[in-house]
């Protein structure tokens, strides 16, 4: 019972934040702001789901920690892809609600 409650709790938290990330991606007004949805809300979304998986499989099959690796890989890759997208957007001078910075490396080289 306790196990089921904990697993459901983390699954719901995970699902909620994944949903929020998707809503952010669809709803925010410009490209740079949309980047915030998938980079952040998804972190806790995936984190919640993985925590649920860790709890469930540890209880049912014995220690299950390889979910930690998914977290690690996500932390390594998500910022890099966000950074690349932002750089590309800056270089293309995409429309932005925040004033675009003048002296950034964007237009120079």
């Amino acid at each position, binding site marked *: 019972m306790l196990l089921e409650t904990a697993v459901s709790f983390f699954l719901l938290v995970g699902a909620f934040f994944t949903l929020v990330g998707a809503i952010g991606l669809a709803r925010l007004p410009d490209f740079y*702001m949309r980047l915030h949805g998938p980079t952040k809300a998804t972190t806790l979304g995936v984190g919640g789901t993985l925590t649920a998986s860790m709890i469930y499989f540890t209880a049912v099959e014995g220690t299950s920690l390889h979910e930690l690796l998914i977290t690690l890989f996500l932390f390594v890759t998500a910022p890099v892809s966000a950074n690349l997208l932002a750089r590309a957007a800056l270089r293309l001078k995409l429309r932005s609600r925040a004033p675009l910075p003048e002296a950034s490396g964007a237009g120079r080289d």
Partner: protein
Amino acid sequence: MMRRWLPHPVTSCVLLVAWLLLNRSADAGHVLLGALLAVAIPLAVRRFFHRPVRLRRPRAAVRLALVVLWDIVRANVNVARLVLGPPARLRPVFVEVPLDVEHPIAVALLASIVTMTPGTVSCDPSTDRRRILVHALDVDDPDRLAREIKSRYERPLQEIFAC
């Protein structure tokens, strides 16, 4: 001798642990194979590390990791609120944060941390690594944001990398 075969002890430890986790086993065979990889991979990629990485303060590293984890949870709740609220009220800005850390890996870490935490995405580390450009979702005082990033994340990184 030690330096020669294990140029990056921390990387080696991470590789070994990752191997054991991937295989979900700590049998002697897997430990042996993992240890081989942990020695071989850092040697193979040695040329990509231009400057040696020396971690000075393991305790500061653990503290920073905890601060970042906590901030990620806060960031998510915060961003969730902003996303579900009316988008017209958001005040996005670009902020340039001047950097004091110099080590390329420390700069990369700082940029990653900024991307993972409250309402900010790092966009463009300038080519000279003297500043990073940060896009924030909803900010009333850009200077305070820059100061916060510096004191909360950069200073600990500076201590850890001793640069």
